[in-house]
């Protein structure tokens, strides 16, 4: 699935076609998970994260037909990350409003602080780094066997000991280590491919 980084532009082009249905499905499947993870990492609740996923994809769909290729590979990506960031923030604010948490009840102006913090330059970098990770992980997850992913996830994210995971998944300890390390290595490799492009 080395498909995406290079052909991102052509994918956008195909989205712009009247018959972009297939491209759209490809796009949404791959990005759904990544956007969801990104949103969850921004302290959004599952329902809100899902809403952000939908809104980002709808926004992509809206801009795709008029997307200008200026020759910069980073153009779309920058736009996407900015859009995600903005939507996460809006949703967070909306949620607070809906729940009746106004600025007054938080420490004074704290919401604005959050906003200011999010708007700073260094955060652009953080956004991009996190996004690259979510995206690369999603891609790798789609490529490998579910069991391999599970072994990786349980050991490196949930922090379960390898021997227990091995028992649980009926694998040898060696295979669990193999799954764990090869998966992350692959994710890292994807991230560097992405970085080299920008």
């Amino acid at each position: 699935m080395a498909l995406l980084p290079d052909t991102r532009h052509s994918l956008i082009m195909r989205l712009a076609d009247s018959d972009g249905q297939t491209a759209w499905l490809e796009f949404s499947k791959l990005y759904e998970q990544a956007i969801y993870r990104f949103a969850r990492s921004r302290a959004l609740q599952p329902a809100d994260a899902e809403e952000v996923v939908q809104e980002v994809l709808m926004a992509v769909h809206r801009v795709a037909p008029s997307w200008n290729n200026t020759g910069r590979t980073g153009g779309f990506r920058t736009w996407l990350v900015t859009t995600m960031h903005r939507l996460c923030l809006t949703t967070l604010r909306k949620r607070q409003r809906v729940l009746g948490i106004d600025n007054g009840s938080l420490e004074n102006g704290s919401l604005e602080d959050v906003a200011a913090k999010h708007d700073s330059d260094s955060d652009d970098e953080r956004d991009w780094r996190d996004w690259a990770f979510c995206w690369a992980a999603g891609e790798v997850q789609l490529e490998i066997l579910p069991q391999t992913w599970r072994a990786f996830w349980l050991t490196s994210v949930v922090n379960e000991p390898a021997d227990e995971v091995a028992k649980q998944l009926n694998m040898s300890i060696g295979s669990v280590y193999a799954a764990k390390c090869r998966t992350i290595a692959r994710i890292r490799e994807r991230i560097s491919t992405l970085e080299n492009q920008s």
Partner: protein
Amino acid sequence: MSKACLSKNTALFLTGDLTPPEEKKFVEHLSSCARCQDKLETLACDKATWDMAKSMLEFDPESEKAKRTKLPSNTNSVSLDQNSEFIEQSESIAIFNLLHPTDDPRMLGRIGNYEIIGLIGRGGMGVVFKAFDQSLNRNVAVKVLEPSLAHVGAARQRFAREAQTMASISHENVIPIFAVAEHAGLPYFVMEYADGGTLEQRIAEEGSFSAIDVMQVGLQISKALDAAHRQGLVHRDIKPGNVLMYRGTSRVRVADFGLVQVASEASFTRSGMLAGTPAFMSPEQIRGEVCDHRSDLFSLGTLLYTLCVGHTPFRAETVYGVMQRIVHDTPRGVVQQNSETPAWLESFIARLMSKTREQRFQDAATVAQILEREIAHHQNPGSIREPVREWIVDRELTPTQNKIIRWLTAALFVIAIAGATYGVIKQIRFSKTDTTQHIQKPLTLAPVEIPAWNDAEIQSAQVKAASLWAELHQPPSDANENRFDQQLRSARKRVEELIRDYDTEFTSERF
């Protein structure tokens, strides 16, 4: 387990560059060699990346989604035997902790004077229980505010409003409210319990409905909507799961006014509202535009479509696919899929499902009126005449009619091209041999429709027509339709070119 440490192979193993036997050996070795395990972990990536994995992958999209969809929405869509599985989930246990102990061993607990029999469903704002009202000896449904929202003022207000809304619409097709009260600091309200499940369950069990049942259900929902709309309330969540049925009668009642919007109020989107199926949403709802009562009519159209054919009109693999189709696509004709549907009903549903609000029926009362007349005729065709369907506007054809018209147009074009080509050739030849006679001819294309084709010409036209016809009979697909449009366009272009050439030829010769 091998004695010699294979750590020199770690890097090659990581990149998958060992030979299969070497790899097998290394994995076996890895099971017992802590040194190789550590080395592999260090080589795989730096600490920052491991940390990143922890923070970014903490929440698994798939399992979270599965968990969320497993919790039914706030409809009566869970039967009691499903509850046991349900109760196992920790969140649900929290809800059952709310209940006060009961003396009756068959019951789960108590809320106020109501003995709780089971959990019916759960929505964004509340939990619905099936309960028994001892004082009146009847089953009821009790909706309690979601405990986590108990201290949120806006949520409490909103919850209270749902109860008020339902109580204010006193209508035979809207679920009645019996009481509003509080239990352990949580507001709840008591509604009628519908013993026949939801329309959604009925469709899942029995598939499509007969035309008369579709009309009956449509009539009742449109009456309920009319009552709500008259009070300035838009339901915004009309779908089969929100229409309740009763055993032994054909009555249905609309439930779940949790999303109701006061028409004049600014939009208040419930968070996660998009999370469920958007299959019954209107295009304007999907675009996030202002909804009005006509948005409910679109959803009603979608619901009736679903009843007619047994599945929703816009299906796609993903939620976005569905949303996209709602906004852009015309669904397949109902008659095409269920030949027992009367043609007028197809037009009726298509009209409800018009993409723009202006093209739909303008109010629920009109919808109810039309259905009333149709039902009367249907039940008594001998004495009640077929209603005049003045609402069928010519330009709004049903998809099936549209298809037929396109075929006919295409066939006519083939004939026109053949005719025109033949005519032009004839005319040109003719004009070259006898200019004097030609000058008396009018300069329009009309007389060009020369009679008498020779056999070969007729045959070739027939072959062309037949091949186009065959092509058109292929199952409809988007690709086909696009090609079709292109053919029409290029045919038109060719005719125009021929006419232009024809004109040029004449003008140059004459003047």
